[in-house]
């Protein structure tokens, strides 16, 4: 029996991250241009896509069935094979990968989108918590992350300076990324609503002199609330080779979830990341795009994935450079794939997270040389 094993990322595009997109929460205005971009780059058209899958959240839009209108961006007639997860687009990519593995589709397109600015994101995300005993207190997502950050400080696992160093590096990288929030010409966007993240070039001391926004988190420790979208195209075997000179072959694609009980978890660890990373072969990565909306979370992820100092972390600037909800994880995978497709790396890793304080994690390892050795 012929089992498809060689599936590669062959295309990636993302909408410019914006603090306050004028687009609708349906995602259409953010998606149409990047579908066009990725089709131009690959030479594909909508009719060439065998399976479509999206990731988004009704609660970001404040409307039930908010993902339905996004289908208008596809041009889904004649009808298409299509599905949707109420999760980051990274998990939509996973579902797409499964479809290609079954042989039902030779190419697949995964997209994610989110207009976080439509509501008060940190408050909306309180609804991800236990609905009976935690959510009724409305603990916001920044406070939850802050509890996690402090736990690590108390345990001596990291310092505020370590966290600031992550922020500084991310800002420098984001400044070079035209899709990141920081990476655009001044005047291109409305000024940030809250205290600006430290300007690239500040010393650690200067960074640590800024006030906390949620002790021990400072503004620079937190990903900015971002609107955006991302799209990744997969193709199998020879189709991938025909469409892309240097496909990013998926050699490991794993995800796991931890307990929902915040109080029962060791918040300084991420067993789901470690487990997914081990199974996916994370330690082989030369470049790792990590979906860490908070600086301390990058430190946790690095440790759990076994990434040494020689590994380049989030050259795109990562989530700290722009965190479009439900697209950011997919964008990490796309960015990692770009490192391979461009020839800058041989093995790259994209990570995505979902849920409070790194509850759920996904790792996608890609390799320029392909063949993951999966047996039939």
């Amino acid at each position, binding site marked *: 029996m012929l089992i498809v094993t060689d599936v590669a990322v062959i295309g990636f595009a993302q909408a410019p991250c914006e603090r306050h997109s*004028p687009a*609708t929460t349906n995602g259409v205005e953010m998606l*149409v241009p990047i579908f066009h971009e990725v089709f131009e780059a690959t030479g594909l058209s909508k009719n060439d896509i065998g399976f479509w899958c999206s990731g988004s959240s009704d*609660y970001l839009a404040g409307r039930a069935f908010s993902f339905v209108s996004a289908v208008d961006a596809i041009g*889904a007639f004649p009808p298409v094979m299509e599905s949707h997860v109420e999760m980051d687009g990274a998990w939509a990519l996973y579902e797409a990968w499964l479809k290609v593995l079954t042989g039902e589709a030779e190419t697949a397109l995964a997209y994610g989108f989110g207009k976080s600015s439509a*509501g008060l994101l940190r408050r909306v995300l309180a609804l991800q918590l236990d609905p009976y*005993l935690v959510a009724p207190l409305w603990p*916001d997502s920044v406070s939850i992350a802050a*509890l996690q950050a402090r736990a690590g400080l108390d345990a001596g696992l990291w310092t505020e300076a370590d966290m600031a160093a992550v922020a500084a590096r991310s800002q420098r990288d984001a400044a070079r990324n035209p899709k990141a929030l920081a990476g655009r010409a001044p005047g291109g966007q409305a000024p940030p609503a809250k205290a600006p993240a430290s300007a690239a070039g500040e010393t650690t001391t200067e960074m640590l002199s800024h006030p906390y926004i949620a002790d021990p988190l400072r503004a620079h420790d937190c990903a900015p609330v971002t609107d955006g979208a991302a799209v990744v195209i997969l193709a199998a075997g020879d189709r991938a080779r025909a469409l892309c000179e240097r496909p990013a072959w998926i050699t490991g694609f794993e995800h796991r979830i931890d307990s929902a009980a915040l*109080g029962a978890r060791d918040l300084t660890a991420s067993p789901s990341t470690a487990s997914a990373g081990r199974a996916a072969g994370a330690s082989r990565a030369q470049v790792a795009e990590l979906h860490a909306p908070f600086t301390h979370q990058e430190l946790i992820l690095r440790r759990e994935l076994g990434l040494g100092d020689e590994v380049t972390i989030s050259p795109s600037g990562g989530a700290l450079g722009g965190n479009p909800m439900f697209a950011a994880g997919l964008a990490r995978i796309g960015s990692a794939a770009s490192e391979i497709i461009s020839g800058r790396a041989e093995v790259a890793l994209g990570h995505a997270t979902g849920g409070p304080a790194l509850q759920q994690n996904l790792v996608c390892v890609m390799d320029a040389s392909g063949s993951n050795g999966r047996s039939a």
Partner: protein
Amino acid sequence: MSQPRIEQALHAPLEISFDYTRSLGPTLSAFVTGLAQRRILGARASDGRVHAPPFEYDPVTADPPGELLEVGPGGTVVSWTWMQRPLDAQPLAGPFGWALIRLDGADTTMLHAVDAGSADQMRTGMRVRPRWSDSHGAGITDIACFEPGEPAEPAESADTQQGRAAEPVTMVTTPIKLGYEHTVSPGESSYLRALAEGRLLAQRCPACGKVYLPPRGSCPVDGVPTETEIELPDTGIVTTFCVVNVPFQGQQVEVPYVAASVLIDGADIAFQHLILGCTPDEVRMGMRVKAVWKPREQWETSMRNIDHFEPTGEPDALYETYAHHL
């Protein structure tokens, strides 16, 4: 899409609000009833750790817990942060600390607020005690918050007397209210602004040439923006319809009334509107209709400017001419 048009997109607040009624099931009911009785309960997991609050299903074995046991009421802060500007519906209106609190006798922590006064009063390792609220059986909010200090010696207060008499609690109500800014697409903005001027402005797809009223975010068939604007008359036909006998919240028209798919002359999709000006049983598929507008001074950016459509009395459209729109 030209940038200036996107920036002029219409937007308005959208609030979603509901008081969710959550039935608790046996384990959470025991816990919430315990809170009503001013007792905090936990559950022992398969690995021997005591979880407070209790788990519904063991994280390792997925089994429900056995008998719950009492923990606290005092506890120790294991981690904390400071909420300088509290958000809607959080436990306190003024600045407070969030904390993960390990109640005495438990191995896991409970998330709650600490009314410490200021951030410099918060410390990992500090001792806290619950401050009970006025409610008995509201759930986790029976604990208004925690406050610094050791619990007082157990004493039968009026509160605990009332608590001990509490009936088992099987349901809690959680109000959820969220505010959003809802934005419509550029095409829809043009269409709505035209409505405010008494005009029906559709958009044509550059690829397939079909005319959309109202415009969608993009042509649903081709996935491209529909930018060419085309003004249409306020006449058309009923393609299909139903007679509504069920009123809904906010509906101002008396039942029975006709809700119809109206295909405006020149449009390639129909939209829902009301048919009045005749009895419901006089409405037919294919019937020609014309818009009846509200008085001009009531116009806004909405299809509500057309109060309803009414029959024109012209001959019905032949079935074959609209069958492909059904």
